[in-house]
């Protein structure tokens, strides 16, 4: 168990580092995907199948693809914009990541999981998960669903084609 965990953890971390430091943005996204898969493996090792698979489905199948589309549709997929040293950027970036780290560490320390140090013995049942979603966390679930629907409608609105595509025949060059 521990060796497998070590391998996954190392891969995840290494690919995360690579995702930040590689020069080619598409490579970065692909490395990020590897680290997503590593996270899913960690979930699986915690006997939480559903979450692991959902992680793969959502992050690999959707989020990574979304990032790739965003990358390719904007200009300069290959260009590197951190060649110059910009102290302000580093400062702000560092602050934000520190804050994020603080939030994460804080919430982990407060959660009851931290007391449970031994291996997880209770196998999570998909049914339990579903029931807790529908009974216990119904309101957040519905709020989330509403949010996603709004996002979807917004996306559809943005993607609506203009009434008439504004293409006119251009003057020919040779005639």
């Amino acid at each position, binding site marked *: 168990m521990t060796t497998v965990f070590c391998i996954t953890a190392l891969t995840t971390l290494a690919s995360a580092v690579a995702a930040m430091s590689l*020069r*080619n943005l598409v490579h970065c996204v692909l490395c990020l995907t590897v680290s997503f898969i590593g996270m899913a493996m960690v979930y699986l090792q915690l006997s939480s199948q559903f979450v692991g698979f959902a992680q793969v489905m959502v992050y690999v199948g959707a989020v990574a693809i979304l990032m790739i589309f965003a990358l390719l*549709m904007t*200009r*300069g*997929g*290959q*260009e590197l914009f951190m060649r110059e040293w910009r102290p302000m950027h580093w400062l702000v970036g560092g602050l934000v990541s520190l804050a994020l780290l603080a939030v994460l560490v804080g919430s982990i320390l407060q959660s009851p999981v931290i007391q449970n140090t031994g291996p997880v013995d209770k196998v999570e049942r998909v049914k339990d998960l579903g029931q807790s979603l529908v009974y216990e966390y119904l309101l957040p679930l519905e709020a989330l669903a509403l949010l996603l629907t709004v996002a979807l409608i917004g996306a559809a609105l943005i993607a609506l084609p*203009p009434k008439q*595509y*504004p*293409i006119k*025949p*251009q003057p020919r060059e040779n005639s």
Partner: protein
Amino acid sequence: MNSAQATPSSDKAQAGPMFESKTSDQAPSLDGTERMEVSMGPHHPSTHGVFRMDVELEGETVVKLKPVFGYLHRNHEKIAEGTSYLGSMPYTDRLDYFNSMTNNWAYALSVEKLAGIEVPERAEYIRVITAELSRLQNHVCLIGFLVQDMGALGTPLMYAFRERERILDLFESLTGARMMCNYMRFGGCRCDVTPAWLRQAHQVTEAFPRFLDEFEALLSENEVLLSRSQGVGALGQDLAIAAGVTGPMLRATGVNYDLRKADAYGIYNRFNFRVPLGSHGDVFDRYMIRILEMRESIAILRQAIRDIPDGDYVHPKAKLRGFKPPMGEAYGRIEAPKGELGFYLISDGSPKPYRFKVRPPSFINLTILEDMCLGQTVADAVIILGSVDIVLGEVDR
């Protein structure tokens, strides 16, 4: 190797954007996306031969299209000016190699006009029969290719070829060659049709409507085909007339113009047939007009095979060797399956034409490709090209 790399982008292994903006001199488009230049052809599976379309895309929408041809240019007109009148006849086979019969006819017609040769009645009937048979096989193959361009994996094309085979068999047993018939002569035809051949032609004609019904069952109501072709590549009447478009392409726009009626060359005024007209001028109309034309061709064939008289198949005084038309000029034109095919000849009294000019229907129908493709997607550009019905042998000459 691949035409996508034809644009000379200096892609280094790591650096450099993948798609260089080749149109930076133009105003940026409305939604701020970059235009992409794709060079489709000359080695592209959908260009019906060696033909290139330099397409400029915005997303997948065509904003500029430049047809580039000439890859198959072989100096047809100049060769014809250096050879005897008869010697050009086999070269006309190779213009639109699907319809050597109509090419022969158009050339023979103009030489007959030039020299004032009479054509016997039986020869006229034979000409009508062979021309309508080649119209059948041209249209059915064109539809096969068109649906192939829509991605139907060749099934309709194979059916079309199956039927075309029967017509080519007829041509072979009549003239000796399947495609390069070289059949018409000035003042008639090279050899006579036998009663057995006429019976066979009758059988083929009678079997054709059943095949057409099957073909239409496969295609005409197919939702995928409808949505691919309706409203795609629409061409207006005015533009079509202004650009000199002829043939099914013109009739699909609704213009009532068929040389078989307008000129009534040969003996076409003896036959009872109708001219189908479209109203949208889009790819689907072009497809349907061709289907309907085939049905009318079958009607003509039935009448011609029924009525063919006995007599000479070639004018008895027609000369093969030493043929010298008098000085003058003539333009003979016929309704070839692809449109108006004309030959313009100037004679200086020598055995060779002084000037030999072809009016190729596919070349002239192709000139408005850009106007039809603007605002459509790449996939549409492919089928619009397919619906124009070009043969590169005729376009490039």
